[in-house]
């Protein structure tokens, strides 16, 4: 467990599949995720094999976000596409418990993960992509110190139209300099 102010991160395990199954079947969670999770819902079998793939992927690490008070699991955060030679990785996060939204828990989880990425894993750059219409997430990433660096035009098709995704990143020097 690595601890922040309000949340801690523990490594995801196979038995967490039921959490992911529940979160990724909640329309409110899927609504703003964009291309990565374009499906309407997911079966238990599909989620099981997705979790196995995530655990076997040596270029990825996934954590369950736990509320420190009470120990309730509230979401999933991870680094994927970890490129050790160039010291970069992509960040992905969902807060699956909708009742916990807007309490700064996601921001706290990102803070813990960035600290781990830069100060323990010695990475240099963390980047992410976010759907242009996901204003709540974009505001959170900016608060965490991510900078806009580009736009993936017509990144995915959603609600009857092509949608862009924003590309954002933070460097180790920026994280330490805040």
């Amino acid at each position, binding site marked *: 467990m690595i601890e922040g102010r309000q949340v801690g991160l523990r490594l995801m395990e196979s038995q967490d599949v039921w959490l992911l199954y529940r979160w990724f079947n909640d329309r409110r969670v899927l609504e703003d995720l964009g291309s990565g999770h374009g499906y309407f819902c997911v079966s238990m079998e599909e989620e099981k094999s997705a979790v196995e793939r995530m655990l076997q992927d040596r270029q990825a690490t996934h954590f369950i976000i736990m509320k420190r008070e009470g120990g309730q699991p509230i979401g999933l955060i991870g680094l994927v596409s970890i490129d*050790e*030679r*160039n*010291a970069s990785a992509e960040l992905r996060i969902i807060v699956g418990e909708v009742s916990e939204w807007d309490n700064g828990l996601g921001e706290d989880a990102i803070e813990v993960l960035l600290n781990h990425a830069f100060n*323990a*894993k*010695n990475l240099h750059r963390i980047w992410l992509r976010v759907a242009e219409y996901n204003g709540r997430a974009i505001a959170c990433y900016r608060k965490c110190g991510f900078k806009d660096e580009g736009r993936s035009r017509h990144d995915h098709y959603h609600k009857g139209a092509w949608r862009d995704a924003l590309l954002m990143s933070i460097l180790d020097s920026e994280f330490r300099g805040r």
Partner: protein
Amino acid sequence: MLQGKLVRLRYPERGDLPTFVRWFNDSETTQFLLRGPPMGLEEEEQWYADLLKHEEKVFCIETSEGKLIGNIGIMHLQWTNRNAEIGVLIGEKEYWSRGFGTEAIALLLRYMFEELNLERISLYCDETNLRAQRCYQKCGFRQEGKYRHHRFKGGVFTNDVVMSILREDWDGLNRT
């Protein structure tokens, strides 16, 4: 391929293995290596197959005429700590003491600092192997300590010197 003046470094091919086996069966060539005779071709083929699975790389040292004279490798690469070890062998004895190894090491150091972005490169070497230590010093390595009784050879335990070069040492050498 890393190209220098005297030598170039390239990846080893299966056809290089009999040459490696010949070097490792020569007790003079291997006197300061951790591994000596006997070595078999099938054993070496297994080593080669394992090599393809690692990020740790071995390169062939070739003269500008294309003659294979030795090999040099990156070992124990740790990305998070940005460090690695190197090991080098000039297997063809007529190329000893002529600057071939020194240039091969310099080429590999440039690759490791400027492409792999490492912070520290270290090696250890039999303390009686003064020829090698002088070569490493020329390349910018400094002795930083000893591993006592680190190897067993010829019936006795012997000491190794530990040498390293940091990024700041490399930058100092290349500031012009």
